């Protein structure tokens, strides 16, 4: 059974009296342990889809089931709780909290758990070790390179051990070398830790790292290509 099941999803935005249809009858299945790349031009609906999968936005109609739970029917508060344990999010601009160290940034999502202070710290250190930044744990974001910031962002995304990792252009702000390292890391998380990764990207080279690539064109799934 697929980890993610998107069924008959319509998404309509209303601006004043105008209605903009982003998705019409969208359907996708994403298997557990899959590494999926979502490509498409700006305005095609990639980020909207990612937001819906993260439970930040809800479809106008249709259902989104993740691990058997229909998140499209969840209330705002329940969605926040669900997100805290089931989804790790990686941003294009890293979005680390500037006044927290790398370790504290990684530990942040664990404040929502019942773990003790010591357990939280241990898990954050482990996450930083996985991304190869254990020795930078006391550095603030301004003291890190772009690649290191993104790796910290990835550590933050995996620290709660979520089944689903959503990445919105994770290499969009990095040079080629740093981008390659981030993609290596995502592949490793997918391959070695069994994480399901859904990555939005404009970069065909990045998409090549994924096991499957979907193209979105004006909200329509035009092409599905298996690599």
């Amino acid at each position, binding site marked *: 059974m697929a980890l993610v099941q998107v069924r008959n999803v319509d998404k309509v935005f209303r601006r004043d009296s105008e209605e903009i249809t982003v998705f019409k009858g969208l359907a996708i299945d994403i298997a557990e342990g899959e590494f999926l790349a979502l490509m498409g031009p700006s305005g095609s609906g990639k980020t909207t889809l990612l937001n819906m999968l993260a439970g930040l936005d809800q479809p106008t109609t249709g259902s989104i089931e993740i691990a058997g739970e229909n998140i499209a029917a969840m209330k705002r*508060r329940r969605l926040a709780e669900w997100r805290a344990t089931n989804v790790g999010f990686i941003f294009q601009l890293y979005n680390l909290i500037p006044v927290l160290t790398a*370790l504290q940034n990684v530990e*942040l*999502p664990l404040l929502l758990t019942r773990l003790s202070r010591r357990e939280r710290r241990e898990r954050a250190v482990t996450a930083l070790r996985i991304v190869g930044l254990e020795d930078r744990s006391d550095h603030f974001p301004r003291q890190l390179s772009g690649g290191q910031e993104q790796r910290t962002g990835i550590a933050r995304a995996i620290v709660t051990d979520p089944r689903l990792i959503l990445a919105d252009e994770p290499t969009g702000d990095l040079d080629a070398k740093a981008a390659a390292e981030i993609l290596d890391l995502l592949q490793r998380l997918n391959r070695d830790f069994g994480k399901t990764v859904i990555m939005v990207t404009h970069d065909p080279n990045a998409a090549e790292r994924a096991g499957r690539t979907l193209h979105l064109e004006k909200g329509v799934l035009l092409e599905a290509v298996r690599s």
Partner: protein
Amino acid sequence: MTRTGLVVANLRRRRRRAVLTILGVAIAIFLFLTLRSVLTTLEDSGEVGSESRLIVRNSIGIVFPLPIGYRTRLLSLDGVEGVSWSNWFGGTYIEPRNFFAQLAIDAQTYLPLYPEFVMPEEQRRAFMGERTAALVGRGLAERFGWQLGQTITLRGTIYPGDWPFTIRAIYEPGRDRFPDNVMYFHFAYLEQAFGGAYSDEIGTFVLGLSDPTRAADIAAQIDALYENSAVPTKTETESAYQLGFVGLFGNIGFFLNTIGMAVVFAILLVAANTMAMSSRERVPEVAVMKMLGFGDRFIFSIVLAEAFLISLIGTALGLGGALLVFNLGRFDALGFVPGLAVAGRSVLLTLAIAAGLALASGLFPARRAARLNVIEALRHVA
């Protein structure tokens, strides 16, 4: 990393701004407490006096004398146990700014009316046995570093010339709020110095009563007695007499309260502005935190806690400063009122104001942060 750590870390974001805001709150609280302390001290000044003693003064005003001849008549009144008198001297010590209350008294009759004077018996005897002796309060002695046996010279403003005194006794107040910053000396010294020129005039009479509940009746009786005389009297309890000094300042309570509230309101605007700025700057971070799964309530509590922390630190500094300056320092309005101090009720009021300040400055930014639309906010980031 804890929730508290997160709040403190946020405060460090703009250190200078946070420090300035905290200082602003601290200064406002300090000023507010200063004004409140003046007010409460004046309100409490009635406690300096007693309800069981009556003060008889010239009805025209306290600066006008009474004939000493009234003494015999006053003493004969039913319910009056003792009669004494005092005269305001109005001298300065070394410099004009060293001004404090000095009273010329008839010590033989005055001291028995005031059990509040606590001093060793030998000092009492030494004071009683010397015409130029002075009895000073402990606070006054500490203020000028006076020792027993020391001779001090006052310069008279009402009674011209230099007046040497020898400190023979230092008293401790026998009850709370009884002033320890007054100097007493023998009326006979004043009388002698002017060759009897002032011997038939005194400032005020003080009467000891056998039954304090009859104070109002006796006061009315005295004033009626001299109503048609050349020098009519005004008689009131010692407490009421002290409170009369407060009345000299007019409606000072309203004045001080208004300024105090204006100061608090001004700092409220500053704190609210700071919180609003801080909240606006953090829109993307709040969005990220929500994306990580932090709920509206958590976000609300974090932003509000920051406002409380600013207010708490500022209040602690302001309150601590006021306690340090006033409760450890000395200010006595030249002896008319007890030392200026931060009253317990002012501390409670300040804590309530601090909580109100935090709520007023933090509530709106906290609510806005909690209701933030994550997608809209992240769109700005991207």
